[in-house]
């Protein structure tokens, strides 16, 4: 054991210690050492950093750090990013001080069958690959590590928010990947790491093109050109949006959206470059089916997820389908058409309003998205929904007396809560919600063979069909065709009830 001391180049007199056992953890560009108490790491760049790169790092640990964390709402982001806090130098090597990840990002159990990866980082790949959840795979993850399908919606919301905030600040991550986004289905959280690659358009160019699986097609297609060539495409906000879409698709469907059966070249390397780059084609393209995965060529341990016929992307619901179409069909080779991070965040959240718990206790996914049919069933285990299912369509007041649908539905299940962001369209469900806004305003239950909404906090709830006020502490029955006014305030919504599965 050899403890070394390094000095900050930003805060005079500040120093850090790390343990050099001669075998640092090796990243793509850096060697990483732990501090003696393991509360932070010192990550040294193996290559010399030029003036502009040093300037960029300096800004990341000072200006950008402050603007992200030392202002109102900054606390939320502390858990979302693993942001470098200081810059050091030793023998001309530049290093960064980076806090260690939260404990929940290390496996408590890991594999179901042994302790080999217990305590290791929860890199995204573990959760994006179908093998590790296949019961026939000897080194599958323990069920306690996997969470359920709803967990991955929350994880994706967090990732989308992390990317949204970076982009709002005019920054691009430039290397979103399995390794750089840790996920934890147990606590339903995600953390974006390796912030030091941040790209500031015009000011600091990227030094990596990304990680395989997540590099945008235009970046791969122009990889052979010189960096200074005007036609060369390098990571940017728009390539982040490709990586984000790929990531969301993978965490919800456990397969890669572009890796199908189409062969572009007999040489593997060339084929890979074309199928992820210039010739990239969505495996579930509705018209061009040439890149559909070939079931007979798949590893059986990748089933059922690799089977796009059995589990098509439409099981993620209508809002996400639209965004996947935009990301992998219209925007795949037209970067400007890719959906921004905030659209992903909102579509994911709206989709959770369509989700139903599966009544099969043994179902591995536990939740599914209502499939818009009159006789819904779980797409994962095939269990049909039992009993009636109230569907609430949300309307807003377009102008006095004219109400328009918002393309937003709420599927009711037993013991589901209603929140302010349902009752009022001016309250947006995002990371800026106050603690008061996160308190439910009512709940739905199946009570004495009837579906009811119990009003807890809606002061102006009214049953429009029966022309009756529903004060807090009372309830209203949900029946087919009934209209409820949730709030009389500005932005208050009307819901129209449909009973499905009658």
């Amino acid at each position: 054991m050899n403890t070394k001391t390094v000095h900050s180049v930003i805060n005079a007199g500040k120093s850090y210690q790390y343990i050099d056992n001669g075998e640092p953890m090796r990243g793509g560009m850096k060697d990483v050492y732990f501090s003696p108490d393991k509360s932070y790491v010192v990550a040294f760049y193996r290559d010399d950093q030029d003036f502009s790169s040093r300037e960029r790092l300096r800004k990341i640990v000072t200006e950008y750090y402050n603007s992200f964390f030392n202002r109102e709402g900054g606390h939320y982001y502390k858990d979302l990013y693993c942001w470098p806090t200081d810059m050091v130098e030793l023998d001309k090597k530049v290093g960064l001080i980076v806090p260690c990840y939260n404990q929940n990002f290390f496996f408590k159990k890991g594999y179901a069958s042994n302790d080999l990866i217990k305590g290791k980082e929860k890199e995204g790949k573990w959760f994006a690959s179908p093998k590790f959840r296949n019961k026939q795979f000897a080194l599958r993850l323990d069920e306690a590590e996997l969470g359920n399908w709803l967990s991955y919606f929350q994880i994706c919301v967090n990732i989308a928010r992390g990317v949204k905030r970076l982009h709002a600040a005019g920054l691009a991550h430039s290397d979103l990947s399995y390794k750089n986004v840790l996920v934890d289905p147990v606590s339903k959280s995600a953390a974006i790491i390796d912030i030091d690659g941040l790209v500031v358009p015009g000011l600091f160019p990227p030094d990596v093109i990304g990680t395989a699986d997540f590099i945008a097609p235009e970046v791969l297609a122009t990889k052979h050109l010189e960096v200074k060539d005007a036609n060369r495409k390098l990571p940017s906000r728009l390539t982040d949006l490709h990586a984000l879409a790929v990531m969301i698709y993978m965490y919800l469907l456990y397969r890669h959206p572009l890796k199908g059966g189409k062969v572009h070249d007999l040489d593997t390397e060339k084929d890979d470059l074309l199928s992820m780059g210039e010739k990239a084609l969505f495996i579930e393209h509705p018209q061009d089916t040439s890149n559909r995965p070939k079931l007979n060529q798949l590893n059986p341990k990748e089933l059922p997820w690799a089977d796009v016929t059995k589990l098509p992307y439409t099981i993620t619901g209508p809002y996400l389908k639209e965004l996947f179409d935009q990301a992998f069909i219209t925007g795949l080779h037209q970067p400007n058409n890719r959906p921004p991070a905030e659209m992903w965040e909102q579509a994911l959240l709206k989709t959770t309003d369509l989700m139903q718990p599966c009544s099969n206790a043994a179902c591995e996914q536990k939740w599914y998205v209502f499939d818009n049919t009159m006789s819904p069933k779980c797409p994962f285990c095939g269990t049909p929904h039992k009993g009636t299912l109230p569907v609430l369509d949300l309307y807003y007041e377009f102008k006095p007396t004219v109400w328009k649908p918002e393309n937003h539905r709420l599927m009711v299940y037993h013991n589901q809560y209603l929140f302010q962001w349902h009752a009022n369209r001016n309250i947006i469900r995002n990371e800026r919600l106050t603690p008061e806004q996160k308190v439910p305003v009512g709940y739905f239950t199946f009570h004495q063979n009837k579906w009811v909404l119990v009003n807890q906090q809606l002061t102006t709830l009214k049953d429009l069909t029966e022309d009756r006020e529903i004060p807090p502490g009372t309830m209203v029955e949900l029946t087919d065709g009934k209209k409820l006014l949730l709030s009389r305030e500005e932005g208050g919504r009307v819901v129209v009830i449909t009973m499905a599965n009658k």
Partner: protein
Amino acid sequence: MRRLPVYFLLDTSGSMYGEPIQALNNALSGMVNNLRMDAHALDSLWLSIITFDREVKELVPLTELVSFQLPEITCPQSGPTHTGQGLEYLHGKVVKEVQRGTPTQKGDWRPLLFIFTDGKPSDQLLYREMIPKIKGLNFGAIVGCAAGKAADNEMLKELTETVVHLDTADSATLRQFFKWVSDTIEQGNKSMGTTSQVTLPPPPQEVNLVI
């Protein structure tokens, strides 16, 4: 689903008898354990072990990492080093096992070859005859490892530019070498630079140990 086939061609000639073969067993099992902790490796890696001394043996046929069982590698107390025969056998295996791309099926990734020896080929004629054939197989990388004083770097260099020389074939050195081997295998999963392709990570430093 593309596989990444990795072949290990290991010298088990008489000179490996004793501590070196123990160290090799140790280091290999450490490497396999390391790889089993890597989600990417488990997703695509297939391994094969071929040994050569007087005879050539396929100790483990090309097997998916998750099912790979490492047997104890043994060697005779004395005998020649038939590296050439080893390469000849390997050639046949690679041609047969590695899936080439066809118009309807994706091919495997270019295979990797790690060749480990502590001496020099006893069948030089065949060895030199095989070199162009092996090179013609389009390996993603061929890494030669010459361990110990008697190991001949020059012969390996005829096969590949990447030759790592280890002064001793003890446990610590070999473990370090095979750690590097797994880093090399895992290379494809890391961030790629804008300026150039990331190639092999720097090899471990030579270690001089006095025993």
